[in-house]
């Protein structure tokens, strides 16, 4: 008997994973339950365990980008069965009809036809599309051979070409998928954050735990999302799909690698609980303790560059979401009041939204609600 090893279902945000590492050798006998492979999404590494005892056959090499559900290897009862399934696999990939032009282009670009998505006919366009989408990927896997540059870039202009990490490749693909899968538009408001900062400080000292401006933003966004369910939803096949519960993703930059742990049912938690959970998730991110479950099923996202002196930035939407809120660094401003200038701290709150679901006015209304909640934070934090 032969059992296929498939890419596990991992995250709604990623349709592909990178084969990060095979832990069992090709052809070796592995016991049931041992970790035989690690695949990597844009957010985390996921172990793949042996479903049963058997001889391990490897179909996809380390560094390869593979789509969810694809067979990456086999577990066979006998060496003979493994050889048979391997031969069948190679035959099936070779049986595809590949046009002459497609084969020539693949050779010229150094694209392996085995890497192309499953299809009975491979045309020149398929190869070109694949090559343009996976230019970085070709340099990561062991099949990488070609380091090409765009036609309109002179080679002497480029100092060097470096490999991206598998996580960077996956993240880049996710961003492109997001851009192609949504109609992103942007709106921003200025929020006076003095009362929110005071509330955070007061809560910190009263309860002896870290509460920061971002936690206040998190609470206010979660409350607003519960009030405006269309911003806690996503566009799919001319429909709007509303999420059950507000699950807020928090973008964490771990040494250049972005991870997005998710706080579930955020609208049902108070600021203290959110602050605690957010801080713990960030610690787990840096300790590499996040699991796939920690990073899955976000219904909207908050990204924060307030510690970087950024006055405003436009974030990229995550797939299967329709809003991502960006928190910038509070700036000091002076306003006239009672015959003198009064200092206020003001932060720009931006939001990228899916224009297929939301008009600019609706987005402004949502963000306006977040602003109102934040500015009343000192008096009546929801």
């Amino acid at each position: 008997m032969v059992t296929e090893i498939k890419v596990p279902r991992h995250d709604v945000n990623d349709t592909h994973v990178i084969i990060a590492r095979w832990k069992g050798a090709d052809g070796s006998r592995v016991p049931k339950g041992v970790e035989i492979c690690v695949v990597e999404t844009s957010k985390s590494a996921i172990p793949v365990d042996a479903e049963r005892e058997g001889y391990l056959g490897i179909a996809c090499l380390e560094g390869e980008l593979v789509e969810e559900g694809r067979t990456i290897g086999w577990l066979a009862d006998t060496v003979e069965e493994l050889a048979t399934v391997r031969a069948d696999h190679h035959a099936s990939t070779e049986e595809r009809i590949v046009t002459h032009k497609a084969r020539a282009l693949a050779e010229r670009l150094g694209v392996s036809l085995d890497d192309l998505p499953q299809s009975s006919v491979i045309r020149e366009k398929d190869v070109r599309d694949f090559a343009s989408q996976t230019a970085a990927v070709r340099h990561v896997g062991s099949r990488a051979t070609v380091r090409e540059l765009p036609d309109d870039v002179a080679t002497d202009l480029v100092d060097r070409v470096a490999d991206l990490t598998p996580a960077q490749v996956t993240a880049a693909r996710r961003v492109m998928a997001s851009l192609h899968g949504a109609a992103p538009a942007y709106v921003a408001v200025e929020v006076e954050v003095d009362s929110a900062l005071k509330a955070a400080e007061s809560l910190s000292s009263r309860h002896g735990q870290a509460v920061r401006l971002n936690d206040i933003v998190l609470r206010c966004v979660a409350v607003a999302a519960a009030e405006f369910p269309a911003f806690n939803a996503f566009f799919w096949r001319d429909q709007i799909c509303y999420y059950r519960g507000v699950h807020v993703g928090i973008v964490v930059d771990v040494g250049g690698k972005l991870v997005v742990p998710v706080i579930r049912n955020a609208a049902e938690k108070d600021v203290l609980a959110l602050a605690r959970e957010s801080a713990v998730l960030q610690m787990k991110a840096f300790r590499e303790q996040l699991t796939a479950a920690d990073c899955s099923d976000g219904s909207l996202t908050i990204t924060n560059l307030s510690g970087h002196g950024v006055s405003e930035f436009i974030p990229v939407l995550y797939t299967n979401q329709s809003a991502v809120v960006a928190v910038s660094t509070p700036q000091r401003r002076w306003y006239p009041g009672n015959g003198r200038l009064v200092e206020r701290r003001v932060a720009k709150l931006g939001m990228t939204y899916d224009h297929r679901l939301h008009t600019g006015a609706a987005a402004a209304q949502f963000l306006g609600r977040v602003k109102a909640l934040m500015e009343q934070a000192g008096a009546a934090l929801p």
Partner: protein
Amino acid sequence: MNHRIRSILKTSLALEDADAMSLSAASSIHTVGKWDSLGHVRLVLALEAEFTVTIPNEDAVRLISVRHIEEYLASRRVDL
């Protein structure tokens, strides 16, 4: 305040010399501008390395001031 803790705060929060020298037991996440969430993570990891102690994530959330750090390390019987 403890000079080792001051040194760790200076490094992990990327403080200027003058800012590091002005730290006191009362300095906290709300009074030190660079003590943001990312700096806090670096600080906790640096404390663990310096004092050879494991700080559970749930405890790390409560280290909101120099005083809290000193008291916490003392409660863990860390030799400062």
